């Protein structure tokens, strides 16, 4: 089987696919790629199914050698990649010859870049998914972030190299934006009018303490609702919970399944991929939309991605 040698892993590089469904009753959330749209596009560029496992790099990329060569694509943010000496673009399929080195650096745009390989990264599945769940040390490659010296298997190539690039209008659509759209959270009514007002007018900054489980925000604290104690309940991806300290936390890819803090809002599904591109110290704001608007935005986005013109051959 062909392989990738990890010479340097970068800051936090893990194997991810689109996650695992149906294991919530034992406390397992769906998890998977932090920017699922970039993963899907990267996989389409190399001719994979959208759900194939790839490498998710965070802020700083790694150096990878392909002893037998491969057909690869980078998707998501621009980490200044080079194949041997030549610059390579994000959002295009690349033919890597045997022995060539793909080197990535620090991000020039958002937080995450995906390295997709034709045939996918092959790891033993845990609960039907190749995704790494860092907190529990399960899934992916040995349940952990990659290290120097790791060697990963690549699935069988199934078609000859084809030059594919992501269409400009898709790249534009995916360009990071700092206003996240949200719908009302289940405990919105617990928050006072002035708390809600400050939530929607404040600019928040992502804390340095962000991980795949949660994005911690710094900014004008939200007053705790004057309400009876919260009973722990199921929480959704993108839920914005407000702990007693008043600094909101956005539940992120590797989210917990239940939580005991009131939730003022929830990021809409059409903006989930943007969460995956936020970096520590990025500044964001929230904009309230209706449930109907959230659903329409998602349908439009999926139409855009599904259209034959989204990827050019």
């Amino acid at each position, binding site marked *: 089987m062909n392989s990738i040698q990890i010479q340097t892993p970068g800051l936090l590089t893990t194997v991810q696919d689109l996650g695992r469904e149906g294991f919530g*009753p034992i406390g397992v959330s*769906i998890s998977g790629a932090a920017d699922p749209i970039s993963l899907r596009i990267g996989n389409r560029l190399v001719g994979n199914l959208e759900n194939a496992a790839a490498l998710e790099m965070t802020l700083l990329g790694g150096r990878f050698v392909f002893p037998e060569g491969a057909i690869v694509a980078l998707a998501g943010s621009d980490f200044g990649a080079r194949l041997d000496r030549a610059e390579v673009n994000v959002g295009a399929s690349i033919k890597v010859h045997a022995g060539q080195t793909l080197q990535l650096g620090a991000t020039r745009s958002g937080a995450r870049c995906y390295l997709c390989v034709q045939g996918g990264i092959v790891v033993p599945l845990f609960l039907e998914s190749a995704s790494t769940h860092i907190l529990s040390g*399960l899934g992916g490659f040995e349940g952990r972030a990659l290290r120097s010296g790791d060697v990963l298997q690549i699935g069988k190539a199934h078609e000859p190299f084809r030059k594919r690039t992501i269409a400009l209008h898709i790249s534009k659509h995916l360009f990071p934006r700092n206003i996240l759209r949200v719908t009302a959270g289940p405990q919105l009514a617990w928050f006072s009018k002035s708390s809600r007002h400050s939530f929607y007018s404040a600019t928040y900054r992502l804390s340095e303490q962000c991980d795949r489980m949660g994005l911690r925000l710094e900014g004008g604290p939200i007053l705790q609702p004057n309400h009876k104690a919260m009973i722990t*309940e*199921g929480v959704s991806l993108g839920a914005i919970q407000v702990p007693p300290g008043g600094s909101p936390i956005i539940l992120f890819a590797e989210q917990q399944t239940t939580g005991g803090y009131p939730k003022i809002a929830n990021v809409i599904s059409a903006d989930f991929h943007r969460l995956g591109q936020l970096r520590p110290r990025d500044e964001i704001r929230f904009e309230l939309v209706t449930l109907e608007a959230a659903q329409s935005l998602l349908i439009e986005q*999926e139409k855009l991605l599904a259209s034959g013109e989204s990827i050019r051959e």
Partner: protein
Amino acid sequence: MTEGVQFKTASDQSLLVYFGQKVTLDAHQWVRKLLQLLESEPIAGVRNLHPAYCSLLIVFDPLKLRHGELEAILSGCLRRLTAVRLPAARKLEIPTCYGGEFGPDLEEVARLHAMTPAQVIELHSSVTYVVYFLGFVPGFAYLGVLPEPLATPRLASPRRSTPPGSVGIADHQTGVYPFSTPGGWRLIGRTPIAMFRPGENNMSFLTIGDRVRFTPISVAQFAALQHP
């Protein structure tokens, strides 16, 4: 069973079903029944189920299902809940070594309640707990109800990391950390049992609805159970 059940939109791809707003065994039974029904007869488009004390969060694909459609299907399910038969609860024991390095908060908890550490251990291991649900992280069971004299607020600032197997208490709950995770529960002991065992049939040691007792063990017994 449709009275007192409330639907609430949690996000554009999830819906909360509340069986009241109190932690009761009755609400717990309804949560289990709905969970069992939805696991045995899955609704197309539903991606995940997050049970909790008196609610069930249903995560779905918003391109396949709308909140209104899901609510209509669920209303049909709720009418059938009374007929759902739950399996008999399993009875399990969690051997626990209390105090010392395994339970760094035991003395503080005892002090807060004007008890001796021995009384805290006696009380904590005197009751049969119900696994209300598994949540937070894989295999973390929320056990209740902690005897009232032991009810203790969470730590003011959570630990960055709790050793796997740590037995904690928080408010009226107790539980065991399956992994080294951050946590705000007060740690009174540790079990050598692996709470989450990937690759095994019952991956999670505990299942929703189980009845559980904590059995005090010595440091020597802990070591023997950890490396049999």
